[in-house]
């Protein structure tokens, strides 16, 4: 975040997503994240651009990890800086809702029952639709 030292920033909202040790009733020992590199960059830039057009933001930052992660590892960081908290909260939640439904990442879990691809959640589509009203 280039402008972290900028004096106009009154509000910084961050979201960190972590690997939980249990999902859908099975214990998870590791998680492997696959992505589509050429598209990922474009998708994340598009989401950030959309957030900046909707709210009055000073800067945004998205970091998403790929490869193999373990329980309690951090998967994603979204950081939003703004003059006022309302803009920062809305934009951070918006970015996460769009990232969950539009950025090309796929999770495969290693559980006690073997490996399985994580299923997309309807609740994520519903969360995204809120912003289309």
């Amino acid at each position, binding site marked *: 975040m280039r402008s972290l030292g900028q004096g106009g920033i009154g509000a910084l909202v961050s979201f960190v*997503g972590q690997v939980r040790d249990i999902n859908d009733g099975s214990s998870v020992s590791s998680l492997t*994240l*696959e*992505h*589509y590199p*050429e*598209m990922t960059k*474009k*998708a994340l830039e598009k989401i950030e651009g959309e957030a900046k057009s909707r709210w009055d933001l000073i800067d945004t930052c998205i970091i*998403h990890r790929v490869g193999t992660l373990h329980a309690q590892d951090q*998967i*994603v960081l979204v950081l939003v800086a703004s003059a006022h908290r309302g803009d920062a909260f809305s934009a951070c939640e918006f970015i*996460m809702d769009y*990232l*969950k*439904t*539009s*950025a*090309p*990442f*796929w*999770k*495969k879990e290693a559980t006690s029952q073997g490996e399985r*691809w*994580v*299923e*997309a959640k309807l609740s994520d589509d519903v969360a995204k639709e809120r912003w289309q009203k």
Partner: protein
Amino acid sequence: MHIKVLYFARIKEAVNYSTEDIQLPDDVQTITALKNYLSLRGDTWADLFNGKQTVRAAINHELVDNLAIIHAGDEVAFFPPVTGG
């Protein structure tokens, strides 16, 4: 026309490779038509692309719907609904 096709995640594992170059017949011009064309390749392909599974598509790194038009040289990607974040 000639295009490049990429597969990801569950779909990549099912077809057992991640990328191929395809010479499309003239009447295959949309995502729907390409899905139908691929589903003729056999059971594995039919299971993936006959519409019973949700398969998302991107053209040149942009998410598109089934009506999107494919052009020569495009990079088309097929993948399951995303699960990042």
